[in-house]
């Protein structure tokens, strides 16, 4: 939308020519400049600039939709991947949503990878068994994917499918596993994902790749995480598929407790209390956290592993 050409917007030709003469070719070029700058650059009066900018904005602006039409679209596409965990599906109003980024967080060993394997299977299953009958891309940055385990899960959860001739091969064949060795390769793979017909993408444990960049300045670290993240989000929305990412949790140190200025200085006792609670932070910080739509937190409660949801 921002790259729409001004020449194709139906402005009066004299004005359109002036824009192109000054090398303002796209909507982005025109809208980044303030009114006075445009007036000076194009040598036209304010009213002309205003009508031109209004016209460019109208065309560059994405079309307006009512929430009702969004709902109707959702009803058509199905909208979610059921996880088969009744409580979770009920809380998620159906399952893992299409078109959004879902994050799985929890300490190591709690079962995130197992959950991902199950999801991969669920997406590969034929629709008669409640699956998406589709292809899955599993981005395994920590080499945690074990196909023997995958088949084992398949055999015990869906025995009637997996024990029939050739089905195990068919199902496992729908899951594509990628093992990018560097951040650059990961980013390259993301781009490739655009051209593959997909029904689910799982990115397991992104933190591993970013750890090697940790020694660089914090600014750089945020940028390097942000690009693949926003890309994943756009990919999810554009292709209307569910994308699941897992994240590591690290425990918070005392000095990292950050507050707003109006909260004042917390005294020692309250700090201690806060520490005793499950004060878990997802790695990669705040900017990452803002971009994820749904976060599923895996916690251990008295020996049982239970996912809780934070939307």
């Amino acid at each position, binding site marked *: 939308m921002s790259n729409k050409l001004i020449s194709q917007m139906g402005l009066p030709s004299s004005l359109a020519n002036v824009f192109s003469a000054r090398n303002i070719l796209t909507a982005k070029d025109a809208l980044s400049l303030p009114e006075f700058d445009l007036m000076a650059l194009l040598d036209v009066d304010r009213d002309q600039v205003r009508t031109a900018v209004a016209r460019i904005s109208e065309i560059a602006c994405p079309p307006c939709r009512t929430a*009702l039409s969004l709902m109707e679209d959702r009803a058509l596409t199905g909208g979610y991947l059921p996880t088969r965990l009744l409580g979770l599906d009920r809380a998620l109003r159906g399952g893992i949503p299409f078109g959004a980024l879902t994050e799985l967080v929890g300490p190591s060993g709690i079962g995130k990878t197992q959950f991902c394997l199950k999801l991969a299977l669920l997406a590969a299953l034929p629709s008669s068994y409640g699956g998406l009958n589709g292809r899955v891309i599993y981005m395994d940055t920590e080499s945690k994917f074990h196909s023997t385990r995958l088949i084992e899960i398949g055999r015990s959860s869906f025995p009637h499918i997996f024990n029939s001739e050739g089905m195990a091969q068919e199902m496992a064949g729908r899951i594509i596993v990628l093992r990018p060795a560097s951040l650059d390769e990961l980013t390259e793979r993301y781009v490739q994902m655009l051209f593959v017909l997909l029904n689910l993408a799982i990115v397991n444990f992104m933190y591993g790749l970013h750890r090697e960049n940790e020694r660089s300045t914090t600014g750089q670290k945020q940028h390097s995480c942000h690009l693949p993240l926003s890309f994943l989000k756009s990919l999810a929305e554009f292709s209307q598929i569910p994308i699941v990412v897992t994240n590591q949790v690290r425990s918070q140190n005392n000095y990292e407790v*950050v507050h707003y200025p*109006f909260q004042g200085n917390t005294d020692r006792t309250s700090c201690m209390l806060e520490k005793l609670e499950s004060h878990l932070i997802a790695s990669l910080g705040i900017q990452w956290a803002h971009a994820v739509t749904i976060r599923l937190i895996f916690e251990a409660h008295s020996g049982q592993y239970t996912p809780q949801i934070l939307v």
Partner: protein
Amino acid sequence: MSASIAMAESSRSGGHALLDGAQTAWDMLSEEQMQKPITTGCEELDTILGGGIQCKAVTEIGGIPGIGKTQLGIQLAVNVQIPVQYGGLGGKAVYIDTEGSFMVERAHQIIEGCIADLFENFEHRKQSLVCPDILQPNSFLANIFYFRICSYTEQIAAVNYLEKFLEEHQDVNIIVVDSITFHFRRDFDDLAMRTRVLGGMSSKLMRFAKKHNLAVVLLNQVTTKFVDGSFQLTLALGDSWSHACTNRIILYWNGNERHAYIDKSPSLRSASAPFQVTSKGIRNVTSNCKRVRMM
């Protein structure tokens, strides 16, 4: 039209005929008292806000991820539609989504909760106060105008286009931008340009608020700032942006509870109120509400 009304009133009260379009403070008072605020769904929060989110003002709401900004945004887009007969504004909403966090199923759930509460609160009336078609989730959904913005250019274009859109849709009473920050935080090397663009956007939105008598709610993210030897949380976009809004509300965790704090306001006192995010939407705090705290 407002200019001629002002002239007529001021000539009646015997003065200010020279100041075209001006209003006396007394006239503004009567106007302010007549203007209904938009309820948030939580009584305590409404109380510290002076009834709810005010129209003709730009309110910024910020907080860490997961605190409930989008929830509050959706709740306001729903509550603005509460019919006049039930004490609401009966207006429509514009929802500008820059992050893709608007989940239409959640909006549907919040609408159901709102309608259920309306019926419960007005139980003593035997009949419905309005035509039953109005109190249906689908008609509420149809009154939310949704724009999905994917870049800062589209954000600028959308705000510009709103000028024409609001002329054509006079019954819009709230604009929610979720969030104002997203496209301006990364890759924006030219900070001067960022300040300029944001300033232009906020003054346009303020103009819409005054002209069309609507509430503008801008949701903002947080960042950490190094002040006096320690890191502190602050709303994103810097100091120059913090002057752009009329009111500023920060949502934060206080122990295990969600709270809202009025950080800046020309008319409201600094105060804090607890609230809860339930399956029905934003509500008062009841005795037990569990949560898992994440940063």
